[in-house]
């Protein structure tokens, strides 16, 4: 029939155009018919009698009664195909057609869409990170501002605190100088001595301020050390009293010092540390007290020193008591000038001396600060040091120091006491001198040109030269002392050195 032929012809063309392939399976999923072009999709072995799922992977798990469309399945040839399962009454037809054009279009679109979405997700995450970062930055900024505010008030506090003793040093030095220069010397010798004592006290005050600053840098590193030695306790307290009296006088408040011991009272303690603590505590008390009095009491009993500093100042609220021992605190927040370091450092020093700093206070009635530290009493009072044992008087001393002012001072003070002092200004010269002459004692700076004190010590050690060497160093860093001691130095004195200390050490060395 013509019609049937036409129909077949159309069917044929449609099959070819869609690249349609097919196979049919029975109820038990066995192949009963298959088109030849299945192989063009890579489906091989689809022959009558075969199990469908043995030759076509996607057939596994499917059955003969369920109509199902599986779009865009990747065929074994790599081409995308559309699969349609068409169940009939006795068998299932599986139609496969080429979908690669559709797949390619879809691929482009989908790839773009997905990549876009990933980008958007990424952006959201980035935005969030940016937000947290900017929040953190803001916080940092606030902290920095706070730090810089504290720093500024700290610096102005330092300069203020330094000015007080400096003013006194310059003033008294000037008085003495004028007295010396004026031909008709009206001021008595006694006045001059008094003036010089004031200079000495203020210098010590200045030194303890510098120590506060240095110690502050060491608070975290546990580098603050105390070095107990035989000391006249009464002298410390009297010095401190004379040093701070002018400050209380200037504020028109009373300053009482009550000691239960007489001068001299020899005990073992670190005199410069104790002095530093007393100056810090009394300095604070006077600073904050605008009327009334400041009282220092010290009791020595059973080898313990009990100290109390009390004032009639404004007192400290409970809330502030908690903060008061923090560095910088007062400088920043009380409107008073000062470094705000004193209390933090004092607490630490007292702790190292074996005590504990206690603060109690009642608002608008005053503050008491107490501590108790071991201070073993010495039976014999030390010989006044100036009286050098005569046999040492002929001792020959080598001084190595590159600062001429300091060297002159030491040479002068030692010669005055009858020692023979030779001075060299660098380490190499010191070594040469020690090789060519006999010396009984060497006093040596660490930081010198050409050869440092360390180098000289090392050389001496290598050469087996046993002349006792005392090091003078401005470094309070514990490791520097350890290094010098390892290199065999006899003692390590911290600058500014006191002549009495030099003589004490020297006598010790010469005795051996």
């Amino acid at each position: 029939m013509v019609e049937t032929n036409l129909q077949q012809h159309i069917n044929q063309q449609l099959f070819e155009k869609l690249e349609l392939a097919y196979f049919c399976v029975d109820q038990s999923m066995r192949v009963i018919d298959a088109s030849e072009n299945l192989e063009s999709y890579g489906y091989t072995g689809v022959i009558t009698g075969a199990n469908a799922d043995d030759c076509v992977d996607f057939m596994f798990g499917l059955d003969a009664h369920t109509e199902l469309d599986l779009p865009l399945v990747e065929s074994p040839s790599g081409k995308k195909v559309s699969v349609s399962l068409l169940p009939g009454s006795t068998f299932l037809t599986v139609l496969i057609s080429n979908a690669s054009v559709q797949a390619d279009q879809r691929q482009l679109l989908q790839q773009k869409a997905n990549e876009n979405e990933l980008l958007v997700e990424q952006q959201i995450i980035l935005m969030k990170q940016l937000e947290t970062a900017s929040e953190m930055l803001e916080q940092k900024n606030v902290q920095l501002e706070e730090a810089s505010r504290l720093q500024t008030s700290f610096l102005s506090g330092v300069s203020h605190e330094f000015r007080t003793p400096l003013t006194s040093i310059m003033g008294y030095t000037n008085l003495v100088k004028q007295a010396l220069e004026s031909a008709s010397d009206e001021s008595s010798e006694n006045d001059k001595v008094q003036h010089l004592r004031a200079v000495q006290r203020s210098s010590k005050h200045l030194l303890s301020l510098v120590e506060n600053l240095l110690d502050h840098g060491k608070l975290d590193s546990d580098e603050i050390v105390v070095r107990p030695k035989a000391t006249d306790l009464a002298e410390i307290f009297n010095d401190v009293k004379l040093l701070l009296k002018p400050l209380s006088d200037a504020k028109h408040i009373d300053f009482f010092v009550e000691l239960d011991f007489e001068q001299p009272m020899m005990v073992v303690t670190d005199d410069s540390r104790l002095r530093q603590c007393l100056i810090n505590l009394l300095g604070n008390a006077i600073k904050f007290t605008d009327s009334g009095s400041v009282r220092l009491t010290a009791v020595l009993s059973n080898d313990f020193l009990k100290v109390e500093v009390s004032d009639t100042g404004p007192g400290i609220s409970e809330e502030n008591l908690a903060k008061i021992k923090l560095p910088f605190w007062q400088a920043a927040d009380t409107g008073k000038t000062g470094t705000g370091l004193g209390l933090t450092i004092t607490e630490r020093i007292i702790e190292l001396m074996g005590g504990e700093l206690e603060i109690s206070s009642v608002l608008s009635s005053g503050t008491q600060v107490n501590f108790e530290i071991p201070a073993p009493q010495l039976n014999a009072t030390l010989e006044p040091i100036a009286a050098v044992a005569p046999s040492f008087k002929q001792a020959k001393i080598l001084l190595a120091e590159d600062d001429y002012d300091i060297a002159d001072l030491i040479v002068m003070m030692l010669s005055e006491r009858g020692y023979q002092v030779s001075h060299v200004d660098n380490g190499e010269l010191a070594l040469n001198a020690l090789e060519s002459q006999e010396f009984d004692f060497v006093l040596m700076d660490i930081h010198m040109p050409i050869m440092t004190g360390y180098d000289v010590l090392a050389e001496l050690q290598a050469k087996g030269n046993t002349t006792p060497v005392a090091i003078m160093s401005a470094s309070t860093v514990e490791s520097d002392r350890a290094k010098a001691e390892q290199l065999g130095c006899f003692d390590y004195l911290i600058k500014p050195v006191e002549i009495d200390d030099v003589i004490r050490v020297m006598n010790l060395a010469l005795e051996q």
Partner: protein
Amino acid sequence: MLKKKICMVGDFSVGKTSLTQKFVNNVFSEKYLTTIGVKIDTAFINDTKLIVWDVAGRDSLSPINASYLVGANGIVLVCDGTRQSTVRDIKDIWQVVKERIGEVPTVVALNKADLEDWHIDAEQTAYFEEQGWQTFETSAKEGQNVKALFEALVSEIG
């Protein structure tokens, strides 16, 4: 011969294709190529032939086509440990699976475990535990837990 049909499902770009390719061919590619429709691969665990359907992920253009799931013996739910949303979406995806084929044995892959910005915590994976799914931190890139993931599923299927 024992055969099992397994479907990889999850959001787009979580690593379904990568896990499949690592498992089947031991290869990995950094390049992202969106899967269109489905790709079927086979591999063996002992005597069991696995027919793995790597299904196009759920994305903004289209939901998962559930027809692909018909006849599956087990499901691998995949999410990306660096993208929290892909973990949350597992719930919806599981709903689609359950409606079409019921509750079949399932394991979870928390993929891309090799990456730094891992954002998964216990709270997010609590749902997996409630469902009693074994969960694996996997890396298609480094192969971590890939084999274990499929072996666990096969033994769940039994």
